[in-house]
């Protein structure tokens, strides 16, 4: 099944503190530039809520399969981002140990002037053990 369920929008401010913490946690040297995967900070809670509340899945039983980013313009410290998320696909596939459900959630971030900055897609896999 391919769907396009809107998961809502939210605002997120890119602070110097959160960028510094992310760089330190990933072994990156101090720098004012925003690391490529930094927007996970603004997205992971939203994706967990979507899995739990919209898709009725236990986030602890899902496996992160793939992650993609398209960088359109730089994300900078001090920016206020608006994120919007939607489910772009929700399919079943036969895997090695039974059926797997594969869900892809897309998140787009725009700046205050509504210019697109970044698109990210998260694909999670849920194994349906013992189910046909």
């Amino acid at each position, binding site marked *: 099944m391919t769907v396009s369920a809107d998961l809502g929008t939210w605002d997120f401010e890119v602070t110097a503190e*959160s960028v510094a*913490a*992310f760089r*330190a*946690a*990933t*072994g*990156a040297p101090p*720098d004012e*530039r925003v*690391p*490529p*995967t930094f927007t*996970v*900070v603004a997205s*992971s*809670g939203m994706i967990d809520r979507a899995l739990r509340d919209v898709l009725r899945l236990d*986030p*602890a039983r899902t*496996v*992160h*399969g*793939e*992650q*993609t*980013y*398209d*960088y359109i313009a*730089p994300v900078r410290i001090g920016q206020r981002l608006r994120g919007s998320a939607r489910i772009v696909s929700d399919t079943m596939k036969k895997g090695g140990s039974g059926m797997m459900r594969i869900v892809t959630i897309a998140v787009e971030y725009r700046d205050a002037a509504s210019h697109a900055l970044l698109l990210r897609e998260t694909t999670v896999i849920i194994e349906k053990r013992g189910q046909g």
Partner: protein
Amino acid sequence: MTRTPVPIDFPPIRRDDFHLYAHASGDMNPLHLDPAQAQAAGLPDVMAQGMYSAALLAGAVERWFGAGAMTRYGVRFRLPVWPGDRLQARCLSAMAVSGNMADLDLGLFNAAGQAVLSASARVRVEGSDG
């Protein structure tokens, strides 16, 4: 054709790295933080957040090509990363595409030579002096 950069080795992975990353990223899943819960879920130990490993590999691309060089980054999570693992980021191929862009085939490998992450990226390549 663009030259492939030299591999980058990371220090051995520590449990503390997962805690630091959890607080920095907001991914507080206990399978990365609490050995008892990880073992209850059938795992031998806590494992790294997938996005932690993805951030290490992305950082390697920035060291090779410069911050802000990537225009696309795609990661496939292949194997868990455990405390004590020694990881190496490798750029397996770099192919010039159009203008000053190059497509990279990337991997993050453990000491057994297994790819824990495979990835692709498109980067801007500035100048020709490497």
